[in-house]
């Protein structure tokens, strides 16, 4: 009962006026919502390819036409002079720029010095696809050249017209054609949105945990300790208050994630919600644990010392496959990794039972950290 009163007061104090409600509830929802909506479009966009066709022959045009037929490729012709500075590559508007040289057709027909230039940003995901598609078509052109030469030698006749032969091959390619289709368990951008949301949840929970530090500083905690309330009731009250606040922030976020990434209403959404609530319990436990030995609440330092390093290890910023193997293994010591792993499993079809271990470990993290907080909070020792 005492815990419920403490929790109610915690909420009343945290959301004491309209400005606090805006700053602590509406603004976070707006920012996280905006980033979720923006990330929801990542990966759905086309690969923007700028091109400059300097070829005097016709094969450059054929190459451009081939690329324009590729799924997800959007081609844009760039001015022939000063195309690199004119291109929007540096501003992030194009993924890559393809330059077809003057002698491209002649080089293909001669089978010598065939090549094109591709300029791309290092981090551009689409550049490899553009490169391999272009390379594949050039290989096709060279195979047609081989065929043309072979026919000429075999028939001792006039060399067949290259363009006509190429058209025949291209028509033939439409019969018995292999295609690549893509299926996806998790939509592009979803894990980034989750990673981002997790980081924000931590920031928000830690900010609300600043109340305990305020209470220590203002000796409110010391007064509570001398009243007829047990230590665990104080901690449980703060935990409950923070949890209610965190769930208020979480519900619209989960609904938005469902809408943007079109998650199912059943197991997927339930698992996502359970994992995120458990993560909030863990974060609150961590917050209570930190309040035990932090004298002054400084969100920037908490971000720098706790949130960012653990989020990197947990795979919230970049996919864990990109991390060095030592950090990948080390990642299992932070709760973020268990959330990300659980969500990945459920959305790839593993079923809700797959997250039992993850949920158990997250709750154990929370319990251990809150217990540590309970033991370390000494209301007068630091004053």
């Amino acid at each position, binding site marked *: 009962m005492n815990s419920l009163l403490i929790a109610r007061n915690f909420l009343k104090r945290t959301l004491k*006026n309209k*400005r*606090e409600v*805006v*700053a602590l509830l509406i*603004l976070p929802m707006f*920012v996280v919502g905006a980033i979720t909506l*923006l990330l929801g479009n990542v990966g759905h966009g086309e690969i923007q390819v700028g091109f400059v066709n300097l070829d005097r022959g016709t094969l450059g045009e054929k190459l451009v036409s081939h690329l324009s037929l590729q799924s997800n490729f959007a081609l844009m012709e760039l001015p022939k002079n000063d195309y690199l500075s004119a291109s929007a590559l*540096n*501003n*992030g*508007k194009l993924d890559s720029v393809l330059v077809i040289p003057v002698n491209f057709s002649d080089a293909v027909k001669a089978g010598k010095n065939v*090549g*094109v*230039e*591709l*300029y*791309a*940003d*290092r981090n551009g995901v*689409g550049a*490899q*696809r553009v490169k391999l598609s*272009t*390379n*594949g078509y050039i*290989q*096709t052109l060279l*195979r047609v050249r081989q*065929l043309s030469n072979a026919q000429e030698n075999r028939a001792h006749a006039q060399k067949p017209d290259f363009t006509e032969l190429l058209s*025949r091959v291209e028509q*033939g*390619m439409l*019969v*018995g*054609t*292999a295609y*690549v289709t*893509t*299926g996806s*368990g998790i*939509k*592009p951008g979803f894990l980034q949105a989750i990673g981002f949301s997790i980081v*924000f949840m931590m*920031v928000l929970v830690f*900010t609300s945990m600043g109340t305990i530090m305020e209470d220590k500083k203002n000796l409110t905690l010391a007064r509570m300790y001398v009243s007829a309330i047990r230590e665990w009731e104080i901690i449980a009250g703060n935990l409950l208050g923070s949890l209610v606040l965190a769930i208020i922030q979480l519900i619209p976020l989960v609904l938005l994630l469902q809408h943007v990434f079109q998650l199912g209403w059943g197991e997927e959404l339930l698992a996502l919600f359970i994992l995120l609530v458990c993560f909030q319990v863990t974060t609150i436990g961590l917050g209570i644990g930190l309040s035990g030995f932090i004298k002054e609440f400084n969100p*920037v330092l908490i*971000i*720098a*010392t706790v949130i960012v390093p653990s989020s990197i290890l947990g795979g919230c910023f*970049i*996919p864990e*496959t*990109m991390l*060095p193997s030592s950090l990948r293994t080390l990642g299992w010591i932070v709760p973020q990794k268990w959330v990300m*792993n659980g969500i990945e*499993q459920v959305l*790839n*079809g593993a079923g809700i039972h*797959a997250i039992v271990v993850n949920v158990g470990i997250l709750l154990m993290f929370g319990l251990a950290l809150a217990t540590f907080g309970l033991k370390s909070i000494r209301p007068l020792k630091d004053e």
Partner: protein
Amino acid sequence: MTFITLVLNDLKNRNKVTFILLFVMPLVMIALMSYAMRPVFESGKHSPPVLLLYSNEDKGTAGIALDQFLSEQKTFNLARVNAQRLRTELAGGKFTVAVKVPADFSAKLNRGKQADIEVIQSGGDQQQEEITKSLIESFVSTYNTETGIAHALQTANNSAGKSVSPPQQAGGQNFVRLTEIGLTAKLSSYQYFAASMLVFFLLTTGMGIGVTLINERQEIIFQRILAFPVTRIQYLLSKVASNIILAGLQAATIILFTHFAFKVDWGTSLPGLILTIGSVVAVSAAIGIVFSNLVNSTKALTTALTLLFWFMTFISGGFTGKSMLARAGDFTVNKWAFTALANVMLGKGTGEIIGFLIPLFVAALVLWLIGIITYHRRVAYE
């Protein structure tokens, strides 16, 4: 004299541990992030293999050709499973992408029909998924070419499947010369994160100013100070000045430490560095003043500013090594300041980076005007 006393007092009344962490944490963050993200910056040198789940139930020529093609690729770390276990294994989270070839793949192609190879993405790593898709498309392109040639030759008795020769290895015969351009292609991971974290921590200067102003307003220190011969603007500027001094020291620590410890090349333009740092601090200080006048508690202020600075750093790529949302990133302080710093690192002079700093100057000017007006209104109200 009063102004200097106020500045010195503000610097002296700081928690020692917080003060030390203020200088140590940016360095730890830079070291950790640069090390963690090094593979992203050194793609080609240290890029990890793609963990690929592979199920091929096709015993025909096309299936065998794909088997041979994939086994020759150094890009993949291949794990063969049957079709039933494919989804379960992918859901386990160990693999990032799966390729599934149905049993009737070759048969369909030989009958002149369309047949599909399915690339199933886990959503865990977009880069690895794209690499896999591209290589499978490359195989398919070569296969289709051979089919086209077979038809062109009108070898009716020679079915498309029989004419297939496995595609050449990726990199075996390459006709596309890929050149990495763009600003970040020229920076090391240490340079990138030294610059991005410098901007992030400079931005938090504003939070320090805002928190001090609110705390002193709440604890009635502000009203007591105004009882002394101190003008409102003197008081405000003293808070700004002490935080600017700290920001300057923090920036100098980051620059010198990363230069000697991580060999980060900060270029040769000291005026360029000072101008960039100064403009970020000016914007940040103004943001801190504006927000301190809008909210009543440090909790609300720190939440709002943390969200704002985090959001800007995230979308401009400060935490991730690449801009998440290129166009949205253009509207952040981080993007312009980072671009200016990166150009200085690459040897550009003040004249060449001034274009990147103009948006920051304009933002600082506008925010300072708003800050001073709202501050006067708030002070009058108090």
